[in-house]
């Protein structure tokens, strides 16, 4: 929380000026009842018309000054709230981008997106309103009380009595309802889950004739949600009537006390009216305050969520200045184990193998056998829990992550491209690549032909999420993007699944023939994909059950033989 407030420090002037001018505005408003009292006591009682005109001019100028103050306050409040939130947003973006994979796994994409969008918006709104209004209410409430004291101490005691009661009502009800509103939100989220599930699973649900059960489940949650809403509404709905009751009772008491004072000669009629006006002002302010508190509570909750992300540890904690770079591309795993955060059991245990520069290494195994885990360790996306991963004989934790990753080309399982031209996407791989180099990479990735057919070729615009490309086209472009950087180590993580067999084999051949001979890791479930590899790592349940050339494996690795037999039954 403190962290977020520190962002307002850059807006010291604004955060100071906005409430100050609000304060001035409120102060001028508090003078109005005094002027009215003067008009009644001096103007009306003595029939002094010029005084009445003068005083009404004072009222108008007070309104004008009040307006000016308010405008100034609104401007600075908006500037401070928007400016600080923009800075927070930028830092939050940077933070999220620098989080390690373990952290982003725990957070989840939708959470991160919500933090950056709606949480930031709620926070900004709360800061804006806070700067503008939060000081106003107490100033009016206590200011009115102080003004009452200047008029009549006895009458002011009515204010002293009612203000604590009012705060008790406003804050007490808030205290009770805020946690209840959170529960309502949870119930609503649950309802959303059921609705969403019901739509995504429409075919399955209908196939199993589960419609009635789904309706029953929805109705129950729906009913308990609305019951909860009605219940909270009953409590929250007490605020206004209770405030109304307190203030109006206070007014009646005030009039009576005023009457006594006037009767004894220590107060005038006009002053009683002024006291009455002060009490009315408090009522108006409190109603505004109640709605403000809801906004601020929401903003506070958002602020806490934003802070939690900002305080997560970034991936790089210290600058590595060894300046070491990958030269040959030799990869060695030494007794590597990996246990993911919050996981009960290790996903990889005791993996050891050596991949020499320029070799093609297959990684094969069943679903959940740990294939992706193995290759995610190479660019240091996750740190090894035990053992070490070495590149060119140096533990990867001794490299600067960015330097290390510069020499690795990763083609992830799910093809992801950015909105922008084909060229811009390719330049992600290597900022300095020339068009010729890009075309060469596209050729190797078997993407040349279809890019040639697109309008604008390299300038063809790719939509958000690559919506205007087919799955296979996206996959080939992600391969090309990795090839553009001419990496020392190339990782293909089951990244050709959408390609037909012919294109897939052409692509694999092109990769094998690359003139700069990177060390290639090919992850696959298909035996045919790793047939041309120099060596293949066979994984089962996170353990390495075979490592060698396809021929050797066929001879002495049961798991590999089984995989192989599925695809080539007649050859075994």
């Amino acid at each position, binding site marked *: 929380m403190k962290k977020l407030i520190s962002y307002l420090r850059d807006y010291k002037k604004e955060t100071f000026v906005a409430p100050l001018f609000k304060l001035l505005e409120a102060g001028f408003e508090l003078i109005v009842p005094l002027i009215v009292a003067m008009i009644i006591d001096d103007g009306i009682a003595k029939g002094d018309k010029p005084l009445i005109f003068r*005083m009404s001019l004072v009222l108008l100028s007070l309104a004008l000054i009040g307006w000016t103050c308010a405008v100034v306050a609104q401007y600075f409040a908006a500037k401070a709230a928007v400016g600080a939130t923009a800075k927070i947003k930028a830092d939050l973006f940077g933070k999220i981008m620098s989080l390690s994979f373990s952290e982003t796994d725990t957070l989840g994409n939708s959470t991160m997106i919500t933090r950056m969008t709606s949480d930031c918006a709620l926070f900004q709104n709360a800061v804006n309103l806070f700067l503008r209004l939060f000081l106003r209410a107490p100033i009016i409430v206590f200011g009115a009380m102080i003004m009452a004291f200047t008029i009549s101490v006895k009458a002011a005691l009515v204010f002293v009595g009612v203000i604590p009661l009012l705060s008790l009502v406003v804050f007490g009800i808030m205290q009770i309802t805020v946690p209840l509103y959170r529960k309502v939100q949870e119930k609503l989220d649950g309802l959303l889950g059921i609705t969403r599930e019901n739509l995504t699973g429409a075919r399955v649900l209908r196939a199993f004739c589960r419609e009635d059960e789904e309706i029953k489940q929805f109705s129950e949650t729906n009913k308990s949600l609305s019951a909860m809403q009605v219940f909270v509404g009953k409590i929250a709905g007490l605020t206004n009537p209770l405030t109304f009751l307190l203030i109006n009772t206070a007014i009646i008491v005030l*009039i009576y006390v005023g009457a006594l004072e006037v009767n004894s000669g220590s107060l005038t009629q006009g002053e009683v009216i002024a006291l009455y006006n002060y009490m009315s002002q408090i009522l108006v302010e409190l109603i505004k305050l109640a709605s403000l508190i809801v906004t601020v509570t929401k903003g506070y909750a958002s602020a806490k969520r934003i802070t939690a992300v900002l305080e997560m540890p970034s991936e790089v904690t210290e600058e590595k200045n060894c300046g070491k770079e990958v030269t040959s591309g030799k990869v060695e795993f030494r007794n590597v184990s990996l246990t993911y955060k919050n996981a009960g059991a290790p996903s990889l245990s005791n993996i050891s193998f050596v991949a020499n520069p320029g070799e093609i290494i297959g990684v094969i195994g069943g679903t959940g056998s740990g294939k992706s885990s193995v290759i995610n360790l190479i660019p240091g996306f996750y740190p090894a829990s035990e053992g070490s991963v070495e590149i060119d004989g140096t533990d990867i934790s001794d490299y600067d992550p960015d330097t290390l990753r510069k020499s690795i080309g990763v083609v992830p399982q799910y093809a992801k491209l950015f909105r922008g031209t084909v060229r811009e996407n390719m330049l992600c791989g290597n900022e300095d690549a020339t068009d010729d180099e890009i075309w060469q990479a596209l050729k190797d990735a078997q993407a040349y032909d279809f890019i040639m057919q697109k309008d604008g070729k390299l300038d063809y615009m790719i939509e958000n999420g690559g919506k205007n490309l087919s799955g296979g086209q996206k996959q080939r472009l992600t391969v090309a993007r990795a090839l553009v950087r001419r990496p020392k180590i190339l990782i293909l993580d089951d990244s050709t699944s959408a390609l037909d067999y012919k294109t897939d084999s052409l692509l694999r051949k092109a990769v094998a023939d690359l003139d700069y001979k990177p060390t290639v890791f090919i992850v696959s479930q298909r035996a045919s994909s790793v047939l041309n590899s120099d060596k293949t790592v066979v994984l089962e349940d996170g353990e390495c059950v075979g490592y060698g050339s396809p021929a050797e494996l066929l001879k002495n690795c049961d798991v590999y033989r089984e995989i192989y037999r599925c695809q080539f039954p007649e050859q075994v």
Partner: protein
Amino acid sequence: MKSKRKISKGTIPKILSYIGKYRILFALSLLMGAVSVCLTLYIPLLVGKAIDLIIGKDAVDFGKMTEILLLGIVCVVVATLSQWIMGVINNRITYNVVRDMRKDAFVKTEILPLSYIDTHPTGETVSRVISDADQFADGLLLGFSQFFTGVLTIVGTLFFMLTISPAITVIVVVLTPISLFVAAFIARKTHRMFTLRAATNAKQTAFIDESITSHNVITAFGLKDKKQQAFDEINREFEKYSIRAIFFSALTNPCTRFVNSIVYAAVVVVGALSVIGFGSGLDLFFSGITVGSLATLLSYANQYTKPFNEISGVFTELQNSLACAERIFELIDAKPEVADKENSVKVDTPSGDVVFKDVCFSYTPDKKLIQNLSLEVESGKKVAIVGPTGCGKTTLINLIMRFYDVSSGSVSIGYTDGSGNEKLSDIRDITRRSLRSCYGMVLQETWIKRGTIRDNILIGKPSATEEEIIAAAKASHAHSFIKRLPNGYDTLIGEDGGNLSQGQKQLLCITRVMLALPPMLILDEATSSIDTRTEMRIQDAFGKIMEGRTSFIVAHRLSTIRSADIILVMKDGNIIEKGNHDTLMALGGFYCELYNAGLAK
């Protein structure tokens, strides 16, 4: 900012018909509102009268004052009670109406044709049921609580003011609309800024979405700084527009308050002069005002403008909430799937024969898909559907399960009727439920419900025993991974399968079918994300249950297709070749090409 669009005429009557159920409560709410407003307005009048009694030293009529103040207390208490009761009733009506609408909307999603679900993004339909309903509730509540009381307050205030001083009332009535004009003027001027801001906001959100979902690529390629730069640029733009939009719209309040102050000052000066007397012909119009009634007028002048501002706020809110209601009604009123015919047959014992006769089908009339497909599948045969991605393989499944109806021709299944006769009926003459229970289906997109592993398996057969569940899980090779989960079969899985891998999810889906053991099977690329080894084990299990069961299999894997009795080769929505592996290979056509490519080294 939502662009204003015309609300269709039917929306309001529809809302009213939902509220109609609560009409007694509604009438009570109106009554309470009227009582509370009248009393609330009556209190300042009493206060004014009391003030008139406070003339000066030793000149206060305490007897009369006590009378007035006691009446005041009664009014305050009654007004408070009626305010609260109105609030509670409004709450109840609102949330119950929304609950009813939500339920109707949800029930509709269960009987919508699949074509609706396929063509409308899930998020959109969900937001109709959830957030549109929520926003509608907010608007409705605000409308209930502020619209009626607001109008009544304005009318009531005018009435009370008229009884005190018609001339001053005229002054107030003439001056107040200025604040409305000012508010409208500002809203019009800021609209453009809000549009700009909304556009930049959309751009920024899209960028955030893309960057976060591509976090791994950004890390792998060290693009962090580049993305930060691009983000900062959009962020600065957004900041610029935000400050403008927020500042200018925030001007509304001070401006209307300023107008209110002018009205207030006018009432003070005219009122004060009337008390003294203008000493001219004007006195005729401004007579009968006392200090107390001036205080009352001032209190009214303060209150009078408030409901105007509130009502203009309520109008925007109502506009928005009507738009939301309309979106919910679009869903509630969507055309449901054709109901089962009245004399539909309930099939309990299907024979396993499936017959396609001259079937034509297309999703859109202008793009023909399946044409004149005729096919007889005898009981117990294995039908494989092959072809490149997007060739329309799932279309056949849609027709078999009657998720979609054929355009012409017919799909029929064989069964034994109640009296033991073998029959063949068009599936349109069979109840959907009994038709669908004949099939066990595993889809390409795995679907996991929030709940425990057990809940998910039980979808296949709600009455299954623990032993049956475990036996099914063992048969589908899911038992070994379930066993290793923290709470075994009681492990809770989040939305979309949460922490399960794609393959594990698929195994769970297969387990469901294993448990249900339906007479016929549909496998839609079900094994695509399971590795070949696990797949082979599952194939073994399937081989067992497929014995004697008619099966339709959509798969890329040629090894699974080779053993099929009938292979349908599809391309661009059409079935171009039909036969078994050997005849198709001998044909040397598209299948042959596909098969050879599959084994290319």
